[in-house]
């Protein structure tokens, strides 16, 4: 059952098209993230869902109820949408105590005192702020401010929770911790999450599905695994994780790295390689590294990254990045080695 539906949504700022003909349907209770480099239109999309931006084309509805429509020039204002939202810079009100911050949306709705106390209290307990509920935000840490913002957003029991890069102002350790807390809160309260981030690991860890955007255009929608294993384009492949792109010439069942025919061919297992000059994409951890079979290369650099060893290996003029477990027999700098590409993804040359 689709809960939040965007159909053919377009937004322009002057001559720039920030979001171009975007259609989405997000399920109830889903955690959906929008991922992309800065300026890709993800935040604009979120702000259109929140109601802060009008649409230049298209429509937007939640639970079958129309919220924004360009054609009918109909917009439900943000304060009437009943969403929860958490902002990048927390946006916690410095002149109100933690309790008053969280109770604010409930007070606005004119709820009876007892209910405000109960619901604000619950939101504060769930976010672990009970011990500081009488203090003012400026006395608290970044993580605690973020918890206030979360508590304030869940206090009204929203059906949709909008998160605008909520973790990017936190230090890495806290960031991981908060990811789990957001996930937990979602299980408790059952809201739908729309989440904006530029950090692919964050998107992977939190989401049921991910939308990757570039220049206002949707590139791919899919589960984290789909996006990681079968990126729809070279851009998605590169954005989602560490990557190698090798220029390759394919003939029959074999392939050569371009400009390094002497390094030898490697077999191409999948029969359906479509053309002669292709780009081979692979993750550094998925490259086979051995002493006996594969394309001949030379180790240029080696670096230990804790548990993994990071190699830069040259095949002719092309450099390949390879990551292997520390426990596998290591290669030294300058040593020859052989590479294989067991499960590559092919893209047309650009």
């Amino acid at each position, binding site marked *: 059952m689709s809960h939040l539906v965007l159909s053919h949504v377009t937004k322009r700022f002057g001559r720039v098209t920030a979001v171009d003909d975007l259609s989405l349907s997000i399920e109830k209770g889903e955690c959906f993230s929008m991922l992309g480099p800065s300026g890709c239109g993800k935040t604009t999309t979120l702000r259109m869902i929140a109601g*802060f931006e009008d649409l230049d084309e298209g429509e937007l509805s939640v639970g079958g109820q129309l919220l924004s429509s360009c054609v009918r020039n109909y917009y439900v204002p943000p304060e009437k949408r009943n969403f929860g939202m958490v902002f990048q810079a927390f946006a916690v009100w410095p002149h109100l105590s933690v309790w008053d911050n969280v109770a604010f949306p409930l007070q606005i709705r004119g709820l009876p005192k007892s209910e405000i106390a109960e619901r604000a209290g619950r939101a504060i307990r769930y976010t672990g702020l009970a011990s500081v509920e009488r203090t003012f935000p400026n006395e608290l840490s970044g993580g605690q401010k973020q918890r206030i913002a979360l508590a*304030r957003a869940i206090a009204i029991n929203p059906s949709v929770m909008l998160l605008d890069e909520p973790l990017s102002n936190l230090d890495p350790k806290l960031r991981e911790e908060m990811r789990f807390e957001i996930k937990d809160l979602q299980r408790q309260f059952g809201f739908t999450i729309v989440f904006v981030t530029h950090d692919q690991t964050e998107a992977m860890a939190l989401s049921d599905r991910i939308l990757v955007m570039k220049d206002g255009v949707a590139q791919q929608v899919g589960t984290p695994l789909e996006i990681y294993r079968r990126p729809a384009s070279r851009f998605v492949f590169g954005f989602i994780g560490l990557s190698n792109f090798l220029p390759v010439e394919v003939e029959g069942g074999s392939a050569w790295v371009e400009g390094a025919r002497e390094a030898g061919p490697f077999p191409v297992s999948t029969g359906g390689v479509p053309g002669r000059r292709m780009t081979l994409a692979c993750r550094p951890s998925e490259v086979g590294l051995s002493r006996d079979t594969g394309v001949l290369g030379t180790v240029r650099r080696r670096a230990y990254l804790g548990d993994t060893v990071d190699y830069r290996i040259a095949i002719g003029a092309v450099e390949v990045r390879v990551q292997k477990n520390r426990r596998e027999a290591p290669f030294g700098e300058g040593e020859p080695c052989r590479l294989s590409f067991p499960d590559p993804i092919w893209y047309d040359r650009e």
Partner: protein
Amino acid sequence: MTGASGPSAPAGAAGNGPRFGAAEVLLALSVVVLVVVVAIPVLLIFWTALVVDGSPNVKEVLAILRKPDTYEALRNSVVIAAGVTFFSTIIGVFFAWLVSRTDLPFKETMKLLFLVPFMLPSFIGALAWKMLLSPRSGFVNKALAGAFGLDGPVFDIYSLGGIIAVETMYLFPFVFIQVSGALERMDPTLEESARISGAGLLTITRRITLPLMLPSIAAGALLVALYSLSHFGVPAILGTEVGIYNIPTKIYEKIHQSGGSFTAIRTGTILSSILVVAAGVILWAQSLLLKAGRFQVISGKSMRPMVLKLRGLKVPLLILSILYILVTVVLPTVTIVLVGTLKTYGVSFTLSNMSLDNLKYILFDWKMTRDAIWNSFYLSLGAAFVTMLVGTLISYVIVKMKVRGKFLLEFLGVLPFSVPGTVIALGVILMWSGKFGVNLYNTAWIIFVAYVARYMAFSLKSNSAALEQVHDSLEEAARASGATHWQALRDIVIPLIKPGMVAAFFLIFLPALRELTTSVLLYGPTTRTIGVAIYTLNEDGETVYAATLATVALAIIVVGQVVIKRITRTTVPGDQA
């Protein structure tokens, strides 16, 4: 380069040498300047006010304060300051909100226009309003009386209300600047998160925006109060004639009319002491408020803030804003310029009655006005230059140097901010009229010294702001690259703070050109300044010449502002990049 410093180069840390390095010398020099120029004059005022024959005498202080005329001056000052603060706050907050939180047309232009009243010297404004609204001969009053066949005047500008109105016109930008700046810096998501929480625009304004703006509003209001409390020009022009005095005009009257008798000077010093203490308290409260308001400066991404759609009110509010500018800026300016061309005051504005003869007369033929213009020029130029340099030096010691005894300088550095112009003048008289071996009375030097003291605060503010932008590591990197302290200063620090120094120069030069409050107490027969000349011409009933000279002053101010814009535009981008 490195060869010059020889083998001892590695040891060349900040204050190398035994006891007295360059740092200590600079500190001592800065302290001496501030003590001689500011601290001693102020101390002399307190001393004269409180000590009689070598022992403190509070009884006599109270006796003087109980005298009807001093008491009334105190009361008037408070009433005027309260009124001006109240109205300036309302007008300033309203227009600030209008240009930064609504869809008013031509917002950017209007924002600039609301700053124009700041450039207009308020005593020239008062002069214009006197011509427009004086009960007997004011143009507006006469026109209204003619139109409706009234007997008496409609407005009487010679009143507390008139003084409050005119001061408000030219002081409200203090609040406007503070509040519109704070509204712009405020993180828009603070309001957006209230909106998504379900609050409408009115609720957000009442419960989020206004409380967050309160420190800025109060800070602006306090600046207005401080300025109005110690303001001389407007009450001098609109009040003295009908016997309304505030503290500064009472001090002026005492000093001027009693020929420097001791009781007069004592009354002056007692009133001055009250001003200094009040100013100190106001500034202290203001710094507390600004500290409390600091949290809102943290701005997120520069997203456009929420804007209230004015709909039907759009045009009426735009017209109201434009009318405000027309009435407070254009009308007085035009009045001054037109009156300045008349043959005599009171004749009608027909072409046959108007000419440029007055202008020619005061610029070339009349020695008094010629001298006044020349005096103002070289005094402002000299004071601006010296104050800028000394201010750079003092700021450098305060901001950058680690040297013992710096707290003394920090304390002295705050002092110039809380000493009003009238007090400076009085202090300078006490200090430099021969009592301590140097008599500058009736010379241009005494005005020069007073300007340096009066404008030191501007220089310190501008220079230390610039220096705080220059991170210590920049200078340290220069030292690590082999530069001596002096070379690092010359090649790294000074080029980087140059915009701040230039700003300081103009921040002093322009106000000094039109200065009235201080010079009016210090001028001698040959040392009138432009402000003094306009003021005395007006007092002597030479209204037309006063207006002509005021026109010249306005022209200089406009040209000066344009030059500043040019210069800061060419220097500032490099600073921000």
